[in-house]
């Protein structure tokens, strides 16, 4: 009953005209950046984060959330029509989606992706609504020891899922923690790694770092070689899938929703990994696995459903524990903090309008996305025809505006350019930016909780292994880190390794 009352309160907030407008803006921009290869949800949210300074927390968070789950919808369009994933979670959709387009079935592929996304997105919100209050009540019992161990587990999962070497990903996580500590120490007020620069006293900005590592680095990678993007010339007609398509996709949609939801909750997990796992699962369960990779609609329905379910579920650890499970949620955490709101177990009690308003806006956003994706698919296809040489100066400009407007100083733009070059070099040498960014956000929280836990236990480390939740998290993290030593686990990790960014 409480849930219904709260949800009604949420709809009251979400239906306010200003919030509806920003919800629409969020899902529209999300679909747009999902469609356009070269700029992902992380870069787009960083760009728009400073803009939310001028609006209410509700409107800001609603818009940023809309960008995230909107990009999950949009990403499938490029994957199906151009064989280029608009964002990382749609990589696997390329396999069968593009083959369907080549067989003249681009319409049903796009239609099923949109419908599956809608169903999963809605189910994930129901799950979020039902599970979040219980988890928040449970999380009130968490102390610094549990928080520290949970963050270690989150970082470890992300490192484990990174492409290539775990050692390199761990190095990046260390760099991220150190960068997060730049500025004044919150306990002793000592300046750390500031090099007597006034701009560094408050620490490094999240937006310039993310824009540099994800936005500028991507542009530099594209500029370094000629990008010839081929559009598959096909008429996108008949978006509604056939009865046979629905019959084949019903199972993958149901399984993808459940799988994506539970993977989305896990710290370090997320949309990308769930789409890969869903594809693997559907192929394994299929009576005709040989059809996969040759235009099987299950290969589109499953992953597209799973990534949307995971996108919705990713809000649970952020809203109930205050711990971002991935880079996108780390940015949302930044947005909450900028607005003076601390996500965590008390959010629902202290800011019910904000919490339930965001949840209700997701229902509305999902309906908006269905409307945007079905009839407007032709418009998105036209947009894909804009050459990258015309697009990249515009993306560059948006990055500059995003970095500058955080604190209105050129220093942040220089910082973004520096991280752009670093991100570009990291890409060349096989170092992942995602562990760095998540560790950058978690670094100060990790430090605070570790120091508090040690002060409380008078320097005794045993509570970390004696308290059950903490012990489970640390044992799980240790097992994950040791798993590459076993060849079979190493093989499995390579299969799952993805780029969260």
């Amino acid at each position: 009953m409480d849930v219904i009352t709260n949800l009604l309160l949420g709809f009251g907030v979400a239906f306010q005209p200003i919030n509806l407008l920003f919800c629409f803006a969020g899902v529209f921009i999300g679909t747009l950046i999902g469609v356009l290869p070269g700029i992902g949800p992380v870069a787009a949210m960083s760009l728009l984060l400073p803009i939310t300074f001028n609006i209410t927390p509700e409107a800001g968070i609603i818009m940023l959330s809309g960008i995230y789950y909107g990009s999950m919808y949009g990403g499938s369009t490029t994957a199906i029509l151009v064989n280029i994933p608009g964002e990382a979670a749609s990589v696997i959709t390329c396999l069968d989606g593009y083959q369907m387009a080549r067989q003249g079935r681009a319409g049903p592929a796009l239609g099923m992706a949109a419908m599956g996304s809608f169903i999963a997105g809605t189910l994930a919100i129901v799950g979020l609504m039902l599970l979040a209050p219980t988890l928040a009540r449970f999380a009130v019992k968490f102390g610094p020891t549990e928080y520290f161990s949970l963050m270690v587990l989150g970082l470890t999962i992300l490192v484990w899922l990174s492409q290539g070497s775990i050692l390199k990903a761990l190095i990046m996580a260390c760099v991220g923690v150190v960068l997060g500590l730049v500025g004044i120490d919150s306990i002793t007020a000592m300046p750390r790694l500031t090099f007597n620069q006034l701009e560094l006293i408050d620490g490094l900005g999240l937006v310039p770092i993310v824009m540099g590592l994800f936005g500028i680095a991507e542009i530099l990678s594209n500029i370094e070689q000629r990008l010839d993007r081929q559009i598959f010339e096909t008429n996108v007609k008949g978006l509604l899938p056939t009865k046979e398509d629905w019959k084949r996709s019903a199972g993958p949609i149901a399984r993808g929703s459940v799988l994506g939801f539970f993977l989305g909750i896990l710290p370090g997990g997320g949309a990308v990994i769930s789409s890969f796992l869903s594809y693997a699962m559907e192929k394994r369960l299929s009576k005709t696995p040989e059809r996969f990779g040759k235009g099987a609609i299950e290969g589109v329905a499953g992953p597209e459903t799973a990534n949307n379910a995971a996108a919705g579920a990713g809000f649970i650890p952020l809203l109930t524990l205050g711990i971002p499970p991935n880079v996108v949620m780390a940015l949302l955490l930044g947005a909450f903090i900028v607005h003076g709101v601390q996500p965590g177990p008390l959010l629902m009690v202290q800011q019910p309008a904000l919490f339930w308003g965001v949840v209700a806006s997701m229902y509305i956003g999902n309906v908006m996305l269905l409307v945007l994706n079905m009839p407007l698919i032709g418009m998105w296809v036209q947009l894909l025809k804009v050459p990258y040489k015309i697009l990249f100066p515009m993306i560059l400009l948006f990055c500059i505006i995003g970095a500058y407007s955080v604190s209105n100083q050129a220093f942040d733009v220089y910082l973004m350019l520096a991280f752009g070059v670093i991100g570009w070099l990291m890409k060349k040498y096989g170092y992942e930016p995602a562990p760095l960014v998540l560790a950058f956000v978690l670094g100060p929280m990790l430090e605070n909780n570790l120091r508090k836990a040690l002060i409380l236990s008078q320097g005794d480390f045993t509570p970390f292994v004696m308290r059950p939740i903490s012990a489970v998290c640390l044992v799980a993290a240790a097992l994950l880190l040791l798993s590459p030593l076993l060849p079979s686990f190493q093989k499995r990790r390579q299969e799952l390794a993805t780029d969260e960014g």
Partner: protein
Amino acid sequence: MIRGLRADTLTSALALGIASYITYQGLDLEVGTTSNPGSGFILFWTGLMMAALSGTVFVQSLLPSADRATIGACFANIRWGKVLYVLALLVAYTFVLATLGFVVATTILLLILFKTVEPQSWTVSVIGAVLTTGCAWLVFVHWLGTQLPVGSLFEAG
């Protein structure tokens, strides 16, 4: 000489250097004790961990079975000129932004980018630069209230 070096050897050596500096900074800021951790506590231990990790990557890179990708191979077939040119343009743009202001500096930057990186006709370049700057100004400054520099040159005038 450096192009023939294995990529992992160079990057791990660099990471080792950075890790050593972080560890030193941690010590300098005071590590403290486990019951009363100081400002340098996390820096020190993170630095040490990073040093151990990069040291391991360094040793692995010297083994015969290691990834043989060299520095040269990582940067083969790259249009270096274009990358450096765009970066130089962006640095110059940031440098003059406060003086020329957002509108003038951005129009010039976009015009140069359109006209020189992947050369477009003058018509496309001029229309692209003016339209993009105008739309950006309208959306960010006028509608969303983002504060972008007007330009000290114009303010003085």
